[in-house]
């Protein structure tokens, strides 16, 4: 692969990202602009932006890598990453929008009338966001290393710096445009090489042994629930993964905040339909890379499986065509790291800004500060922790690590949202207990995995895919503790329920919080 072509392509993506970001800067003035783009983004723009933000290193590189090594079972990653949006749509999207809360901690505070529950949620947003950012940085390091041979630190540092600059400069409004552009770039970058390969084959006599590789020696790989990649208890692992992905999406901080940018509930529904179509289309392609990789890049199965998407074009077409396609894929990969990292950074920075930084800045500067600056400092802080974590961790599987972030979200925010929206007798103590029990269990499993967990048997399955036991554990904790503490049911539950469940056309006072700060 020629480094020059790929570096140019990556450079172009970075320039475009910053360019559109700066264009956004001119119309981004108030804090409300920063957080939710003033709620004026149209469904089609918004759907492209949501998809652009959502398709991370895990989707672009990781899914193909996992399928390459472990075979057919990993296809559930594609399915799960998509259906999570349906769960989000039918179970929580509309009520949450009506709640008028800007962020998950806002929702927790208004529903449970507790600063303590709010703080737990703020901590979880930062934790889930960090766990999700970590594989993005690893992906960036891996990509630049594959393309140029540079050490992984370089790629990660490039992404970290650009994301912080872009978020601090433009906030959410510019990010909407950046991400909408990046969805289409990612789709093109992944789809075009596949089409070129397929067209090239039509002019040649044989599809060089690809199908043969799937039969014979490779047959086990193509079997569902085989243990081809060395993962035990595949049935448990598959169910656990599906649960995490189905119910985790609703608890991802960067996904939820996007739903607030719709002007009303109807637009939110339209947006979700388009998102499902866009994501479904995208996920058709990673498995194709994995299947081709079995034939053209079998050496990657042992190590570096996550680079199969980057390596494949150059291996099939040595020469200029391969260089150009490889450059396109590398550019798409960088778009993936930049867009997801930006969205996560906005979400984490929003929480750090509101819950940790602003009151302290206010005190230290005796009121003489600008709120937008607080957000900028928060953006910097929210990238520091994942970057340190990146420096401390060795290589990890991109899609697996993102899957763990989903598992933590499914074991914490899913019970909080689903029960909080639908169950009147949920108590504040129950909410806090559920968040803590689910959060500690799932985060511990995630941490063990990132550091290097058990290699086989039930320990590997239970720690590698924790959602199937941590999520029910969290639900049961909430229900049992709520039953034991009926006196801790929030006094305003009746009011919250009316606000959450009356359709938006009804003109009740939703207690819409003012944007945290208005610069006149």
């Amino acid at each position, binding site marked *: 692969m020629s480094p020059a072509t790929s570096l140019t392509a990556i450079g172009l993506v970075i320039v475009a990202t910053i360019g559109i970001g700066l264009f956004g800067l001119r119309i981004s003035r108030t804090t409300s602009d920063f957080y939710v783009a003033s709620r004026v983004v149209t469904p089609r723009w918004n759907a492209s932006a949501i998809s652009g933000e959502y398709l991370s290193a895990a989707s672009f590189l990781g899914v193909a890598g996992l399928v390459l090594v472990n075979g057919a079972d990993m296809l559930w990653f594609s399915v799960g990453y998509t259906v999570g949006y349906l769960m989000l749509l039918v179970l929580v999207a509309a009520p949450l929008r009506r709640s008028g809360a800007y962020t998950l901690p806002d929702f927790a505070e208004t529903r449970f009338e507790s600063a303590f529950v709010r703080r737990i949620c703020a901590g979880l947003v930062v934790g889930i966001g960090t766990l999700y950012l970590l594989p993005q940085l690893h992906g960036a390091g891996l990509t630049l290393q594959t393309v140029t041979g540079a050490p992984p630190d370089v790629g990660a540092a490039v992404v970290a710096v650009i994301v912080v600059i872009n978020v601090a400069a433009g906030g959410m409004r510019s990010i909407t445009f950046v991400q909408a552009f990046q969805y289409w770039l990612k789709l093109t970058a992944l789809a075009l090489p596949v089409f070129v390969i397929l067209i090239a084959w039509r002019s040649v006599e044989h599809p060089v042994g690809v199908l043969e590789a799937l039969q014979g020696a490779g047959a086990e790989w193509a*079997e569902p629930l085989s243990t081809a990649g060395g993962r035990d208890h595949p049935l448990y692992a598959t169910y656990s993964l599906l649960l995490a992905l189905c119910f985790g999406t609703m608890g991802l901080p960067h996904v939820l905040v996007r739903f607030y940018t719709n002007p009303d509930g109807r637009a939110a529904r339209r947006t979700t339909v388009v998102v499902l179509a866009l994501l479904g289309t995208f996920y058709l392609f990673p498995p194709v890379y994995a299947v081709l990789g079995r034939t053209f890049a079998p050496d990657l199965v042992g190590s570096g499986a996550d680079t199969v998407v980057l390596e494949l074009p150059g291996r099939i077409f040595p020469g200029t065509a391969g260089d150009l396609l490889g450059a396109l894929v590398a550019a798409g990969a960088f778009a993936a790291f930049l867009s997801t990292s930006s969205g996560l950074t906005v979400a984490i920075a929003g929480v750090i800004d509101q819950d940790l930084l602003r009151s302290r800045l206010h005190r230290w500067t005796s009121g003489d500060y600008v709120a937008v600056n607080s957000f900028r400092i928060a953006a910097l802080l929210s990238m520091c922790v994942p970057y340190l974590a990146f420096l401390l961790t060795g290589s990890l599987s991109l899609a697996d690590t993102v899957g763990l972030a989903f598992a933590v979200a499914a074991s914490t925010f899913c019970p909080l949202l689903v029960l909080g929206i*639908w169950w009147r007798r949920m108590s504040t103590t129950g909410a806090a207990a559920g968040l803590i029990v689910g959060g500690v269990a799932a985060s511990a499993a995630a941490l063990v995995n990132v550091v290097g967990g058990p290699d086989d048997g039930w320990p590997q399955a239970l720690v590698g895919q924790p959602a199937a036991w941590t999520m029910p554990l969290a639900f049961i904790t909430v229900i049992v503790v709520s039953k034991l503490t009926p006196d801790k049911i929030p006094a305003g539950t009746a009011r919250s329920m009316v606000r959450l469940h009356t359709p938006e056309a009804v003109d009740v006072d939703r207690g819409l919080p003012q944007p945290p700060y208005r610069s006149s």
Partner: protein
Amino acid sequence: MSDTTRSAGDPELTTYRDVQVSPDFSELRRRFRRFVFPMTGLFLVWYFLYVLLAAYAPGFMSSRIGGNINVALLFGLGQFVSTFAITMIYVRWADRRFDAEADRMRQLIEGADR
């Protein structure tokens, strides 16, 4: 509950409680629940069933229907189709039934204001 005592001097809070205890509001919530939860359950069962069939009935899943098309492929594509179908059904339902209910609720609440 504390808001029954507070509601005496707080007209706004009375409205909220009125809405909360009104049969229309219970009906609205029940209708939403009755649609959304079974739908979610059905959808999950259908996904989980596919995994089970692949594990324990590989013979059935790989039986050919014609040419290179077998049951597993058909069911797999069916999952895509059903995901979209459920989404479209939900959106239509929300647009028609739910928004219609919104008008009745509006009359209830805005009527109470006047």
